[in-house]
């Protein structure tokens, strides 16, 4: 059995320099229609770490991902992504930064007028000076990562919800971004498909060491991610050996009423005395 990955960077990182983190939120607030959604939240995502974000519907989980990408602007506070302050950047500058970030949207957000091949190749082709023949190989590789090579010529409308979600992952990872943002990647899917997608996310975390934020309602998915690692030999997710629980770069963040009420690892979550958190995880 291959050795499980160890969250080396996660707990040793001491510096306050935003450049040494994948994402830093500093006192970020945002309101929609004068209703506060996020109220001065601060957290850090270490490089190579995957952090699961929980909260009730409308608590601002997806907004955190859109803020990190610069798709929406906060009312106050600073957001640093790979050391760059996205709150101070113009839209034109953000396009360059977004090339280093992949996002999987809640409803996949595949371009419905394009085939799977064109969807997955979209970013590679947009980066310019690349011919369609040149992207065929990375498209195939990306689709093979999500085990959907046979769908290249299909349109998104011909795919099931789970397949669309996997194509969205393939599209997000084709250029090997430094950060991945997953918005409810398993929402509304059956348990078998959900496990497949969680396995892909764990694979991305453990094989490519990609930093990631994952919004989810499914606590069991995050627990699986915290207690499993990706075994390259068997090409499957495996449970961590006894005594190594929490030794994967996996964090938990819980939102309530626009504030972060928990930010820690699976051990700290399990030991939390907060009544709301106890109820949430029970």
């Amino acid at each position: 059995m291959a050795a499980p990955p160890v969250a080396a960077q996660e707990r040793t990182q001491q510096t306050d320099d935003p450049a040494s983190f994948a994402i830093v939120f500093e006192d970020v607030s945002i309101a929609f229609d004068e209703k506060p959604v996020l109220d001065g939240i601060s957290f850090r995502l270490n490089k190579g770490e995957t952090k699961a974000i929980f909260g009730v519907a409308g608590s601002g989980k997806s907004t955190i991902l859109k803020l990190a990408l610069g798709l929406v602007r906060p009312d106050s506070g600073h957001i640093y992504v790979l050391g760059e302050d996205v709150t101070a950047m113009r839209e034109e500058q953000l396009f360059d930064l977004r090339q280093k970030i992949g996002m999987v949207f809640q409803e996949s957000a595949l371009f419905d007028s394009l085939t799977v091949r064109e969807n997955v190749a979209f970013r590679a082709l947009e980066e310019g000076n690349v011919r369609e023949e040149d992207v065929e190989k990375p498209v195939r590789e990306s689709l093979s990562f999500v085990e959907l090579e046979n769908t290249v010529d299909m349109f998104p409308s011909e795919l099931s919800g789970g397949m669309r979600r996997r194509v969205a992952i393939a599209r997000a990872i084709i250029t090997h971004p430094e950060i991945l943002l997953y918005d409810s990647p398993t929402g509304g899917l059956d348990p078998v498909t959900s496990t497949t997608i969680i396995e892909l996310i764990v694979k991305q975390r453990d094989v490519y060491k990609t930093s990631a934020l994952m919004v989810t309602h499914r606590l069991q998915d995050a627990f699986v991610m915290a207690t499993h690692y990706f075994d390259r030999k068997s090409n499957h997710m495996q449970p961590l050996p006894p005594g190594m629980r929490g030794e994967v770069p996996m964090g938990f963040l819980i939102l309530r009423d626009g504030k972060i009420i928990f930010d820690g690892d699976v051990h700290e979550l399990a030991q939390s005395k907060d009544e709301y958190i106890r109820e949430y995880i029970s």
Partner: protein
Amino acid sequence: MELISPSEFAKEKVEAVQDYSVLASRSVGNLFRFPRYFGDMVQQADLIGVGSLPIVILTGLSIGAELALNSANTLQRFGSLSLIGQLVSVGMVRELGPIITGLMVAGRNASGMASELGSMIVTEQIDAMRALGTDPMKKLVTPRVISTVFMLFFLTILSDLLGLFGGALISTFLYGMDWRQYWSTGWQILVFQDVFMGLLKPVLFGFIIATVGCYYGMTAKGGTQGVGRATTQAVVASSVLILVTDLVVTKLLMTIFAYH
């Protein structure tokens, strides 16, 4: 319906004008920035131009024919039926060709753009495009604006010609006018000012159709109902703007060219 204060209403309208102005200016400004999406421009030109051919042919022919039919009656009373070619020619080239083609293309394409972009907004495809590092203004808006301006220009010329042809059919077969006389008088009456006015208008109308259609699409809110609302608003706003612009431009050019 929710009631809002007059100041809030005014603020919303000013913001809408501001957002529209930004979109309109960026759609032109993007022509001078990379990347330029020529493939998308050709695709849109095909959808807008070739796709609009049937309605432009039909309306151009029928408007010219109706213009001839209606004016022939009056002209006959004054014994001036020979002027029918001139009347149809000036009417079509200066006014009816551009405005009818503009309104037809607005009905067909402003709605199409608003619904397509609106659907992309509500299904997060526009956000996905931005997330993938592509500027939707460059990729989606600019090609539509350029293609509409370009294609409406030629569609209007086609509509003018078909209008004259429709008028010729009525004048010849119903009123027994000489075919050659109709065309030669219709041709001779046209001066540079008429043609200039007739060809400037489609450029302005094309810009209005595409920018208004894209604006309503890109600002669609509230799911499928919002997309439907955006589509309707796009057609109404672009049609009204075309009519107002036509009036202003006609008066302005008439003053400049000192028409009597």
